[in-house]
């Protein structure tokens, strides 16, 4: 594999510790501060005033920590606002409920029900909430962060709440965590790898030409349907550093694809390169490992846009054909199509409406199936999850993950391939990063395994690739 760009951060106020484990995104340079992806966190409530056996640790992903941050911020704000109400009540001819004993622990006057909008699945997918218990004590309901050890809720004192709030603030100020782009279920990593290397194979020429096409459109980059990814893609329009020739193992980030795969924005009509201002040098981003699949594809591979779009274009090293492709692509696309189209360029996936790729897809699937269990770790991973994965009747789809193994059998990287997989990550028994959980790899430095967890409790694993780099 190419260089590791794992990032860990640690924030240590006195009564809790937050550790972040993530990958640095190449977009950091454009975002002005650290942009991380595949973020995992570990939050330990380790108040030294409390005995160690009562320390609680929770773990989760980006969505969960953002949920937690949101909940804490809102709750703290409500807490502080109580003083206003208290003040007013004190000076307006006191209602009787205020003249209570001032024993701090029973000060429950004016403690508002802190149930915010905690129940909306969209605003609070992790179902985290905090309820006050007097002014000195707050019950943090962990929602999806809860474990057997932690229980459903943790009681926080005022100081602990303050530390929690400040640690989340520090994290938020420090880091931008990028969402994992969801890929359509049929965009398997196999296709991602093919797509990735297709693009790499295309090289600079294609991207330069595309840039020329698009240079007149940069002003009109439309926002795509997904917030962060759109801004990231827009950012990707900026000139990239020229890097030495991308190594075969240069991997594309899971986050928005590199510059070459710009969203077609608003309907474009340009086909001729226009000499607008500076012609930036475009390079494939020296991307850190993402889904880690650096397989060389056959040249001339066709990239299909998502089913809703229908303008195939050829990706090849030949400028002319590219230009033809761009011309075709210049037809209006819906933003959804353009979003998925962008995805397609990194994840060449067969459109369900177009048959021309079928041959390609079935070829690679065959390759896949013969690779099942080729290394013992595939079976080991399967067994690992079989012990832990329970039937989940509430699930309507399978959960799919891509696990990249280090040589020593620990997880280097892990991706959720669909939204449900992301949501359920903590219920899968997924082991923590960098802890060996299968036997060490022999004869290779890494392995990529796809894990499929079905609602009925079955577990499947597939070796994706990982040819020892």
């Amino acid at each position: 594999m190419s260089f590791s760009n794992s990032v860990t951060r640690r924030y240590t106020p006195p009564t809790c510790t937050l550790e972040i484990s993530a990958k640095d995104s190449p977009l950091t340079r454009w975002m002005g501060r650290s942009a991380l992806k595949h973020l995992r966190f570990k939050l330990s409530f380790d108040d030294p005033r409390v005995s160690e056996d009562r320390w609680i640790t929770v773990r989760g992903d980006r969505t969960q920590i953002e949920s937690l941050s949101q909940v804490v911020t809102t709750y703290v704000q409500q807490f502080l606002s109580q003083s206003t109400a208290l003040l007013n009540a004190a000076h307006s001819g006191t209602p009787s409920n205020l003249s209570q004993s001032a024993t701090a622990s029973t000060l429950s006057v004016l403690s508002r029900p802190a149930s915010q909008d905690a129940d909306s699945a969209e605003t609070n997918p992790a179902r985290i909430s905090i309820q006050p218990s007097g002014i000195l004590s707050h019950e943090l309901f962990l929602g999806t962060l809860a474990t057997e050890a932690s229980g459903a809720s943790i009681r926080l004192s005022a100081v602990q709440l303050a530390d929690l709030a400040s640690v989340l603030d520090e994290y938020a100020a420090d880091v931008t965590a990028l969402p994992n782009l969801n890929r359509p279920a049929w965009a398997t990593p196999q296709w991602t790898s093919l797509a990735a290397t297709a693009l790499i194979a295309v090289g600079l020429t294609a991207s330069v030409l595309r840039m020329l096409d698009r240079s007149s459109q940069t002003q009109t980059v439309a926002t795509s349907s997904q917030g962060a990814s759109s801004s990231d893609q827009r950012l990707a329009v900026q000139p990239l550093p020229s890097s030495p020739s991308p190594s075969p193992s240069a991997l594309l980030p899971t986050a928005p694809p590199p510059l070459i795969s710009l969203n077609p924005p608003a309907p474009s009509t340009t086909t001729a390169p226009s000499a607008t201002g500076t012609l930036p040098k475009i390079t494939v981003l020296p991307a850190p490992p993402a889904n880690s699949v650096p397989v060389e594809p056959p040249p001339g591979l066709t990239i299909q846009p998502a089913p809703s779009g229908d303008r195939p274009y050829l990706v090849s090293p030949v400028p002319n054909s590219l230009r033809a492709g761009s011309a075709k692509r210049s037809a209006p696309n819906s933003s959804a199509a353009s979003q998925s189209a962008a995805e397609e360029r990194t994840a060449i996936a067969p459109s369900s409406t177009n048959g021309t790729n079928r041959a390609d897809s079935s070829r690679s699937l065959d390759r896949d199936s013969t690779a099942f269990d080729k290394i013992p770790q595939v079976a080991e991973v399967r067994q690992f999850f079989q012990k832990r994965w329970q039937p989940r009747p509430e699930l309507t789809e399978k959960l799919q993950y891509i696990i990249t193994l280090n040589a020593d059998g620990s997880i280097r990287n892990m991706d959720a391939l669909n939204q449900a997989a992301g949501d359920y990550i903590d219920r899968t028994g997924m082991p923590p990063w960098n802890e060996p959980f299968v036997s060490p790899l022999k004869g290779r430095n890494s392995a990529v395994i796809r894990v499929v967890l079905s609602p009925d409790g079955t577990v499947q694993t597939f070796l994706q690739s990982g040819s020892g780099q």
Partner: protein
Amino acid sequence: MTSIVKPPSPAPPWEDLSLTSQPEPDQLDNIKAQLDLILLALEAIAGISSEAMLQAAADLGLESVVADRVSLWRLRQSSPLRKGQGGRKKLDVDEARALSLIVCHLAKQHNELVRRSVALLEQLAEQNKEPHQASLLGNYLDAFHNTYQERMEDGETVPTDILTHLALKLLIDLLFYGSQNGVRRLWLTLLERSIHSQPAHA
């Protein structure tokens, strides 16, 4: 050549405290009262004098708003709760911002002390003891009460229990105001239109 995007320079604290419109009069009253009381809490817990507040103003570059003892006093005196209804009662937004920044600056400076006090309070509460039983807190409450009674119109009539409750609540609030995002938190609290009944004073 690559153009490196520079990280945006941290916005000055003012940027955070933007208002879309002038606060309503009763909201402003609230703001004045709260700021004055939060400062009172700081005085009571950390023995902060006007000197310290002015120094904070200077450190923050706010001398134009809070130039000297007199202007500080007048700003605080604008609180509707204060005795002596004559004199300046206005507090404009810039002044409110300035006071907020000063509050948080001081709260941050004295964060250790505030933290220790709150921790102590928690401990006593768990043991079902009264706050006064720890001298740190006992002193704080005394100072808060005395100063309040001296300065405020209803100083003599406000029930002790309520005042204690308020004092302790403000002490805990200081823990949050002294943190990284304290200024924003304070500002949001001040601006919030909370459920409140008409203040007794007119």
